[in-house]
């Protein structure tokens, strides 16, 4: 059951990511990224991270990607022009990426037994829900990082407003 779910959404993820790579119009790329994010949300759910699944949909798919689509629409960015691009990217980049992928895959398959198995719905302590657990840790142990990120967000908002404002 979980394997079927995993396979369906893993295939969707990879297809979306490849579509991001091959589409030439930014809006199509953005939409394929949305597909990747939604499928990842389902995968999070099967791993027992319900809160993250919801946050993934609300924050990433619902806010960040909408912002991307909005900017593409606003700037009326057309199809990507084909330029030669940097030679180094093709010569060193692609083989490098392939090497990293091969190495990681080999490592994970090799250590497969040691890494263990995932069970549907997660194996966190089920007497408390995932959200209760997260909020308990977040607001007790990790309160300082949480507050720091809120300041980061504030700075980012101010920065965005200053950068995007038309000069007088």
């Amino acid at each position, binding site marked *: 059951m979980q394997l079927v779910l995993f396979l369906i959404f893993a295939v969707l993820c990879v297809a979306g990511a490849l579509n991001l790579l091959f589409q030439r119009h930014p809006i199509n790329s953005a939409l394929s990224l949305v597909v990747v994010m939604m499928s990842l949300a389902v995968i999070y759910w099967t791993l027992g991270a319900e809160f993250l699944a919801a946050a993934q949909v*609300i924050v990433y798919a619902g806010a960040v990607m*909408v912002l991307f*689509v909005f900017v593409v*629409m606003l700037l009326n960015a057309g199809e990507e022009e084909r330029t030669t691009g940097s030679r180094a990217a093709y010569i060193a980049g692609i083989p490098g990426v392939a090497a990293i992928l091969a190495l990681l895959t080999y490592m994970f398959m090799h250590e497969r037994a040691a890494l263990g198995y995932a069970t549907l719905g997660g194996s966190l302590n089920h007497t408390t829900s995932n*959200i209760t657990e997260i909020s308990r840790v977040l607001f007790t142990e990790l309160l300082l990082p949480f507050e720091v990120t809120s300041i980061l967000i504030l700075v980012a908002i101010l920065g965005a407003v200053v950068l995007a404002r038309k000069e007088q």
Partner: protein
Amino acid sequence: MNHLTPFQTYFLITLLKLVVVLVLTLTAVAYTVLLERKVLGRIQNRWGPSRVGPFGLLQPLADGIKLFLKEDLMPLAVERPLFVLAPVIALGCALISIAVVPFGALTTVKGVDIFQVSDINIGLLVVLGITSIGVYGIALSGWSSNNKYSLLGSLRATAQMISYELALGLSLVGCVMRSQSLRLRDIVDSQSAHGMRSWNVIGGLQIVGFFIYLMAAYAETNRAPFDLPEAESELVAGYHTEYSSMKFAMFFMAEYANMITVACVATLLFFGGASSPFGHLIPDFGGAIVQAVLPIFWFVFKVLCFLFLYIWVRGTLPRFRYDQLMSFGWKFLLPLAMANILVTALVLAIHG
């Protein structure tokens, strides 16, 4: 049904439930349109639709047939795949969120809860998430139409919806803190103890949160007085200018389905969902069937009140200007929602 395994029984009942809920929602959408036309007519001192069937009751059917039979135009310069996809996203997202709404009291038949499609422990977040995905339908429709009015309408709609989503989400936090759960069933149960007195909007002192929710919800669904994305005096018809026939009908249905969803969420979070407003003042009467149907009656009644309020507001208030809309959302609703959260948290902390 003895020869079925428990899984098959579960599967069949769930499928049946899905079909019934879908059909009922679509019918409700059609009749909400009729309700709107009737009530608007009365507000404007005219009759509204009255020719098709008794009191115009068959008007939605006539509208449906008309929209089906119209020519499905496909303008030449549109971005074809996205142009077709956009109304599907809009309608799909509008209909999916109804799946987590509990319509009645917990009633199980053969181990399946028959009055709720799926009871998820993050039901409220699911509703918010699906609402935020619905933005894509509008954004893409405007962009793919290759029409400046459509593009302007969809830019307005997108900016408006992401701005008001914040206020919408924050206005619900007070209720979530009171019930300490995101499961919609738990939120309803936490308000059902003493009838009207334990509703969040009255007993929970969430009246401020409710007003924020109400205004943010009008903006989220692009309804008057925040219907700038389709302001017909400025933008022809906004993002669905280029759409015709069934594709237009899908946008139209999505708008009304969103209205129903928003009304359902307001009922669940602030008005005690399917619980009776009289609590235990009225002794239980009738058999088990009556007791199972009565909560549904209350739920539908509350949702209808909201829909009526929606239409009333549309018939009464003038449209906002765009800068007013944005400053209202960011400078008034958002700080107010945060203050509401702080006060609610303080009160809860003091009272324990």
